[in-house]
């Protein structure tokens, strides 16, 4: 695994996922790679979380109670001008189409390979930091 990174310089990943076990798995995998994970159980909760701090990346489940992924994406883009990449993580039959539908930056179908998850996250966070520089 990648080495530990300092807490204050860690990239922030907002994980929006209603399944607690999956949330724990993703947090564990990302945490082990030095990312700081902000967890949200649904779209509304996620909108509250981003009020305080804008994440570097959003991992977004589509089907959730209270507020779904599509609605969150729309709301988020309406409220924040930030170019925060959104990666759709969904169990929908066609993950790619769901992602295209909300103009997401990437997609992962459930179940996913942990390596694929990390690779995708790294790709988008790095791209962001290189373009920011």
């Amino acid at each position: 695994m990648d080495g530990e990174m300092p807490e204050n310089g860690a990239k922030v990943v907002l994980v929006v996922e209603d399944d607690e076990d999956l949330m724990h798995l993703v947090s564990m995998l990302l945490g082990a790679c030095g990312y700081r994970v902000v967890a949200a159980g649904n779209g509304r909760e996620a909108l509250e979380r981003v009020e305080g701090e804008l994440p570097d990346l959003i991992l977004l489940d589509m089907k959730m109670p209270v507020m779904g992924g599509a609605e969150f994406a729309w709301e988020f883009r309406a409220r924040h001008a930030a170019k925060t990449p959104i990666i759709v993580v969904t169990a929908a039959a066609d993950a790619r189409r769901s992602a295209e539908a909300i103009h997401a930056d990437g997609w992962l179908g459930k179940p996913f390979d942990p390596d694929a998850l990390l690779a995708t996250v790294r790709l988008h966070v790095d791209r962001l930091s290189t373009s920011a520089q």
Partner: protein
Amino acid sequence: MYRQGNSHARGDAAPPRRAFSLRVIAYAIAVELPYGALVPLAYLRMMGIHAPAGRTLALSLIAAIFVAKTALVAIALRQSLRPIDRWCRDAPGASDPEIIRRAGRAAYETPIRVATLWAVLWGLAYPPVTAALHLFPGNSPPPWPRAMVATVLLSIGCFAAALPLAYSVLARFVLSVAGRISLAARERGITIPAQSSSLAARLVTLAISLAVAPTSWMAAMIVSPALGYQAPDTWTTLALFSLVAIAWTPVCAAFLAGVVAAPFRRVGAAIEHIVVRGDVDALGRLPVHFKDEIGGLAEGVNSMVDRLQETSARIRAYLAERERLLSDAARRAAELQTVLDNIVEAVIAIDAEGRLALLNASGERILGLDASASRGRPCAELGFQARLRRADGSAFTHERDRPLARALEGEIIVQEAQIYANPETSSDVFLRTSAAPIRGESGAIIGAVAVARDVTEMVQIEQMKEQFIRVAAHELKTPVAIMKGYSLALLRGSADLPPARRRMLEAVDRGADRMSRIVEDILAVSQLTMDMAKMRSEPVDLGQVARVTLDALPAAARGRVRLSAPVGALVACGDAERIRQVLSILLDNALKYSPRGGAVDVSFAPSPRAEDERGEAIVSVRDSGVGIARDKQERIFELFFRAHTDTPHDYGGMGVGLYLAKRMTTRQGGRIWFESVEGSGTTFHFTVPLDRP
């Protein structure tokens, strides 16, 4: 009067109880008797016999001769009428033809024969008396030969008088029986072989008799030895003679009138019956009383009635047949209507001009139309055609694309899906419509009929099923993701994992993979039905599709695939996503069933196609893997068929990949096939039509 038709016994007099001949004899003698008394008196005066001895002799002789004559006539009558007695004794309706024939002949021939005999006997009665008076001269015998000449003249008069009288008396009595027999004979189709006696001949005979009888009577009186103008008794004798003549004429005339007039009257009545009533079937037949002109007339009328009744029977039979056909047609129409109204499908028929010709009860319900108000009106006016959409919900762009319009053009449509907006319930009805043209006898299209099944419920159930499958599969994915994620995290995180635990975790990971594949398969089959409906047909760059497919593969797998594409773009016509899916399924299989990690070759090339100028692209995927067992090859494209079940190469899944590949390929107008040798690899090929015209 003529209603007897088939039962003559009812109409005419009932058959006599006593023998018919005896009755005739009795009547005949009774009519003759007064003359039998008057003529001898005249004879005695004419002969001038006044002596009692002479009178006694003459009267005794006359009486004896009269009795003998009467007996002879009676015997002749009895003999001649015997067949009629026989016929009367039998039930007249059931007689055998020979009896009828003989009775008829007797009835027709007896009057003239017996009357002749009778008249002859009258003619022969007096000469013997005169001869006897001469042979036994008692008191003043009449002078010979004057007496004999007078007697002969008297006899001629008697003959001439007796002939018409006897004939008319007998004919009068036999007439009704003859008529009845003629009807019975006619009913059985029997011809009576009797000599005909012309009416004209009879009238001539009558006229001669009427002339001869009084003339010879008077001549006898003049020639008579006892008389003369100067004789004192002449006036008395003349009165007596005149009395006989006067008595004879009306009796004779009355009977003759009956004989001639009655048959005429009956013929007239029958004709009037036909003319006035017009009721041909109620008519009977005329009795033929004589074989003469009147009889001929009656026969003629009978034949006419026969023909009329035949014609009438034919007309009646024709009308009955027509009635039967009409009621048959009405019954069949009612049956058909009932059948039509009781089937669940809507049945709609239009004529060549597009007017509604038929709509059954289900049609009324499904289409929300009123059949009786809509029949005969143009479909465009009724608007139900406009409420019809394609299965994908889009409107028909042209009027001629609608099923009924296409059927009118001669197309036969089988089970096509449409959606109909029912105006009554304002809800959508899913239809499966079949339609066909209706052709007339010449083969020209005279209309079209469509049968539409309401499959709304089926479609809804299908949608529910699909939804259930999708929700269930979707919900399964998250737990599988958790299983797979944790097992892989654990496997990766600790290098010092004991081998036994490592194997366990690997098993959990493989289980998660298999479960994932099953879920994918279920979703893919469920998705297929939906995708098929909205399959696109557009230009597709096959090289681009191949690159996208390869990119989606895991990196390790991607390294094993070798792609050989032709120079320049190869543009096919189809649905890019479906082509990608087919290629992906074939690649997946090729990689999966090459366990030793052999290379997989993907190639595509254009190929001319024989049947049209378009040509097609052949895409091939070749592996050097385990191959497909020969006995499994035939079933490889079946749904849920798995060639590698219970072999070391069972990698899970439900056996849907190749089924999906085949469905999607053929739907785009392509083919799919393969070559495989067990143990040394398989090559799958599929084609896509090329885009260039």
